[in-house]
């Protein structure tokens, strides 16, 4: 029993260190604060997939009462620990991603046109900014044909993402 408790503590300790490491990357002044705009990146880099709404909820929980534009580590740590321990915002499996693209590919062509994808990404769901759209197109689109072969795209992205 004592061993179990020890190993539970050890797990939490590891989680804390992981969170600390990710936080530190963005702590430019070495004073245990990060810009609130970088919280999304930090959370996502720790393996979580919140959507924008979920992200805003997290931020609301860890912000100061009078928002300063900064998030302090003392507030970030407990919330983030809970997120990781409860495995919130789970990663998306590759085949589910594929299905999502297939839903958008109404005519079942096996690819999406530039205008199609742009329309969905910038008008539906939680829309992309123009910058985000351009970046995705530069990665996903075949520049000669202006087509997005999403199966290849999903595979490529999944490979590129070491766990």
């Amino acid at each position, binding site marked *: 029993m004592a061993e179990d408790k020890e190993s539970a503590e050890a797990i939490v*300790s*590891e989680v804390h*260190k*992981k969170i600390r*490491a*990710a936080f*530190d*990357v*963005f702590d*430019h*002044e070495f*004073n245990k*604060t990060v810009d609130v705009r970088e919280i*999304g*990146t*930090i*959370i*996502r*880099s720790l393996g*979580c*997939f*919140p*959507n*924008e709404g979920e992200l805003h909820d997290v931020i609301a929980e860890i912000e100061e009462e009078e928002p300063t534009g900064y998030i302090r580590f003392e507030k970030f740590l407990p919330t983030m620990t809970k997120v990781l321990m409860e495995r919130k915002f789970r*990663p*998306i499996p590759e085949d*589910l*991603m594929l*299905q*999502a*693209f297939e*839903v*958008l590919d109404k005519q079942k062509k096996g690819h999406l046109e530039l205008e199609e994808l742009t329309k*969905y*990404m910038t008008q*539906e*769901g*939680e*829309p*992309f900014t123009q910058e*985000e759209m351009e*970046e*995705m197109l*530069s*990665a996903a689109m075949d520049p000669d044909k202006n087509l997005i072969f999403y199966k290849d795209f999903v595979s490529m*992205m999944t490979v*590129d*993402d*070491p766990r």
Partner: protein
Amino acid sequence: NRSGTSLHLVDCESTMKAAILIQRWYRRYIARLEMRQRYTWNIFQSIEYAGEQDQLQLSSFFSFMLDNFTQLNGNERQTMFEQITVPESYSGPHLTFPLTVSHTNALLSAFKEQQPLHGRYMLQLLHQTKKLLKQMPNVIHLSTPYAKEITICGDLHGRLDDLLLIFYKNGLPSAETPYVFNGDFVDRGKKSVEVIILLFAYQLLYPDHMTLNRGNHEDHIMNLRYGFTKEVMQKYKTHGRDILLLVQDVFSLLPIATVIDNKVLIVHGGISDMTDLYLLSSIERHKVKTDCKPTGPSTQEPQYRTYSTGPTTQDLPYRTYYPGPTVQDLLYRTYRTGPTVQDLLPRTYSTGPVVDLLWSDPKSQPGCSPNTFRGGGSYFGPDVTRRLLERHGMTLLIRSHECKQEGYEVCHDGQVITIFSASNYYEEGSNRGAYIKLGRELVPRFFQYQVSRNTRKLTLTQRVNVAEGSAVRAVQEKLFSHRSELMAAFQQYDTSNSGCISVSEWALVVESVVRLDLPWRTLRPRLARLAPDGSIDYQSCFEDMGPGQPIPQVTPNLAETLYRYRTDLEIIFNIMDKDHSGQISIEEFRQTWHLFSAHLGVEVDDRAIDELAKSIDFNKDGSIDFNEFLEAFRVVSALQTNSTLPHLF
């Protein structure tokens, strides 16, 4: 139709869900990329600043070396450039003074064709520049000309391509197109020589329209380590030394600040809460040859106060390891005993009015604190900026000194702008360069650019991959060069001798040995392999590494020591090798070794040095090349077993 409607509704809902899923997934991917980009940046910066910090501390050693190196030849006077004849075969530009536009055009064409400028003209150019700068005050006051804009550029670091691109996009310097260049013209890039020739030439041509501020790299100690000294010696074999001596004078005569319309302050680094423009106008700037301090309080700058919150330069303890370091101790280190060169010099933190101007960085939190990251200057907060600008009735501080991804960055509520003009500074695709144009209204306009080998724009993914690869390699080299010490420490944790330790233990060891503040856990996947049970196979850290340069057959310990210090050793070798022939004479070797020991107050037997010198001249031709020089350390280790040389262990 109802089913049609509900199908349609379902369809809309599933489209929206699909869209959200894709957006969520893609944003996570981008966030990972940003994280990688960010820590890649951290790696480059840490290694860069750690190097600079070491340099500030190694300076005493190198300063001494350089001073004595110039006296080693006794009374040899500086060559008068009038006595230098330019051979018929020389096809580069010929300069006569005063310069005209045809000269600067000739220089531009020549450098585009990789044609160098002859040493004689280089010396003349420097001589004229020195004369001009002597007449200038410490702080230059400019006014924005009617209906024209002043262009302000940041760090160039020897990147000729960026300078030429700026001239192409923005126009050559002239009365119509005045410029301010904000320091760090040299080091790191391969064409520092060409960059300063052009900058100095345009300044001589248009002294009222071309202003050059001093940066922290306009400093001969920095130049020794960061490449400018080497570049000069390689490009000017005969007159390199004379050129370097004259450059040293020119650098120390560069003004330290520029003010536009009494409203905009331009300095290379930044400010501190002690910055006083009146004081700065009155000091004798040419006496500050280097910001890299000798041991003890700086004698080159007026006495400065100490920070009340942190240690003073006098307070910081002098770190000694063992009594009486030996000469060998200084030059090489084993993992068990013996201090490093850095350890033997006091960890002083540089302060002073000029240091603050050339080394400080802005921070977002208020207050002013020592810039421990760099080892000199301050971190200054928005309140410090506000107070200084108010005190002098100014509205804007423009500075450089830090590489920024977009080439520029605004902070302190718009009161501070960082401008950086060397694109792809860390790696191909790492960042853009930028310059500022400022007109009468003093509203800055930013112009960005990026020199590119490729015509196709790299995606974020590709850029991150390239930069990250480079950064990771740099970290791997660091690990390799501390291999024995790391292995010993790993093994202490590996009680079961399994070859594996926990991630936690691994991170702890690496951080304490390598002493770089990096996100080790985040980097772990790129640096070490995991065993099936989730622990780290620590030997895998060293797997990919083979020395990049051919290192002579040496024992493993020594290989990594040489690897770690090869830059320093190369500098020492280059100092000894005055004519840069790639060879030093036994006599020079002997003299220099005597200098080391004199500097450290260590008794070394003359005979022992002679024996050492003779024994490392393997091909017995009376001179020593760099490989033989490196071999010297292996031989020293072998000779340790004899009693004549001081013992290391």
